[in-house]
C-alpha cells in the first residue's frame, strides 16, 4: 500500500514537470505573439485562449481538479455560472448605446 502510494506520487511528479515545461512554452508563445501587434480582436482571442489553456493546466494538475470529488465540481459549476454572469455584465454598455 505504502509502496503503491509512493509510486502514484512519483507519477504525479512526472506530470508536474511536463505541465511546468508546457506553461513556460505557452508564456513564451503568448509574449512572442503580442510583439506581432495583431488586430485587436485576434490579439484578444489568442491571448485569452493561451491564458485559458495555462489556467486549465494549473487547475487540472497542480490543483488536482482532474480527479476530484463531486462536491467540489458542484461548487465550481455554480461558480462558473456566476462568473459567466459577471462577465456578461459589460454587454450592458452596448445595450445602453443601442448597438
Amino acid at each position, binding site marked *: 500500500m505504502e509502496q503503491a*502510494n*509512493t509510486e502514484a*506520487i*512519483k507519477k*504525479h*511528479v512526472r506530470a*508536474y*514537470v511536463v*505541465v*511546468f515545461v508546457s*506553461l*513556460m512554452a505557452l*508564456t513564451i508563445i*503568448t*509574449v512572442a505573439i*503580442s510583439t506581432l501587434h495583431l488586430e*485587436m480582436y485576434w*490579439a*484578444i482571442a489568442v*491571448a*485569452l485562449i*493561451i*491564458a485559458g489553456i*495555462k*489556467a486549465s493546466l*494549473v*487547475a487540472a494538475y*497542480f*490543483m488536482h481538479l482532474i480527479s476530484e*470529488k*463531486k*462536491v*467540489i465540481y458542484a*461548487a*465550481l459549476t*455554480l*461558480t462558473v455560472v*456566476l*462568473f459567466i454572469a*459577471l*462577465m456578461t*455584465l*459589460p454587454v*450592458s*454598455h*452596448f445595450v445602453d448605446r443601442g448597438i
Partner: protein
Amino acid sequence: MEIPYTVTPRSDTGIFNAKLGIWLFLATEVMLFGALFSSYVLLRVGAPTWPHGYEYLNIPLATLNTVVLITSSVTMVMAWASLMMKSLRRFRVYMGLTILLALVFLVVKGFEYGAKFEHHLYPSESTFLAIYFTLTGLHGLHVVGGVIVNLYLWGPGKAMWERQPERFTNRVEVAGLYWHFVDLVWIFLFPVLYLL
C-alpha cells in the same frame, strides 16, 4: 474540542473539511477578481481611448514575474509531494524555494511600481493606471498573504509533522490550492494588462 475531519474524509462530501473550505473560499475569490475583470472590460469598452499595456508597462519584467510565479507553483506542489513521500527535509527545501520565489515576485513588482511613481504615474493619472494598480495591488496582497501562511508552515507550523503527519500534509495541500489560485489569477492578469 477536537476539530473533526482534519484527516479522515466526511462520508457525505468524501473529502476532509479544510479542502471543501478552501474551495468555497476560492469560489468567493473567483467572484472578487471576476468583478474587477468585469469592471475592467466595462471601463475599457466605454473609454474613448485606451493605451496599449506596452506603452506604460515593462513587459520583460512582467514576463520574468510570470516565470517566477509559475515556478513557485511547481515548487509548492513539490513541497506537498515531498510530504506524501514522507520527506520533511525535502518539503522544507521546496517550501523555502516557494517563499523565496514569492519574495522575488514582490521585489520585481516593487521595482515596477517604483518606476511608475518616479514618472509620477499614479492611479489618479488615468483609468488604465487606476485599474492596473487595483488589480495588481490586490493580487500582490494575495501573494503577501500566501508568503505569511507558507512561512508559518515552513517554520513553527512544521512541528505538527511529528505528531500528525497526515494532518500537516493536508494543511500544506490546502495552502497549495490557495497558492495555485494566486498563480492562476496572474496567468490572466499578465496578458490582459500587459499584452493587450
